[in-house]
């Protein structure tokens, strides 16, 4: 299955599940450069299953999947990560260097500089030496985004990036995602936050009843001259 120009990945009639039991069936989608795709749906609808399927963490039971040479960056839910580990923010970012072939994994000066640059990019240039577990929820999320950026991905997949963070942290993550999108990185966000999807997604996918279908973009909550009373804003 050959990808078109600008196309980063394509799924055709794919089903994903665990064991022999499919959770999602008949999924067809395509993601292009510059897309910011929001994946929404009720709990248990299969949003995370699709994300895991794209990353190879959940088996594809049937259908076709092609991502060509696209590098995928993955930002997991930070609640799944254990605070027991005495890891600094830089240690967490440095984990991505383990993807290199054996013998080239030692973290050298240019790698440390790259870590510092990425910490600066996510607004945490002074936090590199701090313990990951002691950072706030929003900061940890941004460290995980920096970790994914080490791989220089063309498509970034984020699982609930703003869940459980306060409004300020939420805004900082949104600003960062916007900046990454401007840099040409395509983004797929799984989120319960309507606001995030409404304001940032250029396309919306809705998971329900074991299917994933393209949906109409949700009206933005941003106040603009064209939309003085945006959806979701209180009157």
């Amino acid at each position, binding site marked *: 299955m050959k990808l078109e120009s600008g196309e980063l990945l394509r799924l055709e009639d794919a089903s994903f599940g665990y064991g022999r039991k499919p959770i999602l069936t008949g999924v067809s989608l395509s993601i292009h450069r510059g897309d910011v795709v929001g994946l929404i749906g009720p709990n248990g609808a299969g949003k995370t299953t699709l994300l895991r399927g794209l990353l190879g963490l959940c088996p594809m039971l049937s259908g076709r999947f092609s991502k060509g040479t696209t590098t995928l960056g993955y930002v997991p839910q930070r609640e799944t990560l254990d605070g027991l580990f005495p890891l600094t923010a830089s240690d967490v970012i440095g984990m991505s260097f383990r993807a290199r072939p054996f013998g080239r994994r030692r973290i050298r000066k240019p790698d440390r500089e790259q870590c510092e640059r990425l910490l600066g990019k996510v607004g945490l240039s002074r936090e590199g030496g701090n313990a990951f577990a002691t950072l*706030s929820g929003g900061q940890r999320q941004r460290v995980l985004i920096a970790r994914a950026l080490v791989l220089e991905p063309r498509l970034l997949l984020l699982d609930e990036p703003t869940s459980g963070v306060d409004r300020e942290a939420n805004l900082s993550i949104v600003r960062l995602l916007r900046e990454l999108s401007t840099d040409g990185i395509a983004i797929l966000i799984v989120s319960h936050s309507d606001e995030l999807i409404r304001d940032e997604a250029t396309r919306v996918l809705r998971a329900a009843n074991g299917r994933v279908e393209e949906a109409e973009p949700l009206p933005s909550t941003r106040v603009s001259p064209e939309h003085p009373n945006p959806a979701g804003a209180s009157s």
Partner: protein
Amino acid sequence: MTDVSWSLRWELFHFPIFAALIAGLVCPLIGTMLFLRRTSFYGIALPQFAAAGIVCGFAAIPWWFEHIGFGGLTPEEALADAHAAINYHFLWAAAFTLSGLYSLAWLGRRGGSEIGRVAAAFALANACTYLFGRLSPVGLSFVTELFQSEILSVGRHEIEVLAGAYGLAFVLTCAFHRDFVLMSFDRDYAIVLGKRVFGLELLLNSLIGITVAVGTIIVGPTLLFGLLIVPTLVARRWAKSMSALLVLAPVVGLVSTLLGILISFELDLPLGASIVAATLVFMLPGVCFPARAPKYAGTSEVDP
């Protein structure tokens, strides 16, 4: 034993001292991996599996002699020969430890309470030890002695086996520690990075199994429990980074071992138990001055 000079003690007991020091260095490193994977309780259950395996091995001697043999030796000769006996015990201890470990790891992937599983595994292994003990009272008394951790009878062959097995465990754990940490911290991300997580887990579990099986036979379960668990807990309190934790835990293990040797020889107490008691010295500050909740380190440009 207080009127015996240290040079004579060294001459008489240098093998047990070496054994304790090797265990003091390697067990805390392996214990760190157990701790990070939140499986510290394996350090209690697995030696019990090894003990059950050893007793089962004693009970199976007639069958083994009939079907496999001891290289031309009679069972009595085999058990009297240090090399043949330790190899035979190690085989059974390793078989039971690895079976127990892989079963626990497999059941762990299916969810549920880890503590409940480990407690049940410990109870089962304990029961098996006594059931097999009915078939071989000699085996049961051998294991009962092991549990006392009186390691003064350790000889050259035991040291060779311990140094070989623990040397391998130490080198491989150091070589792969970053991969082990990555896989333990974020298994999914390790897979996304293309790590062969199944192979790494197999390697780590095998290293844990070998460490426990050899340690149970040579230094005894009591010393093994203590060195697998306590030095890591002490080091975790002070370590600010992963590297510090991985260095500090073996250092605490080694210093505790030296202190334990001193206590044992001066007060004429069992060596293994004295070393475990010595680790408590390092636990005391943590008990008396509990760690405060982590301080919020928010100094970023964006977050308040």
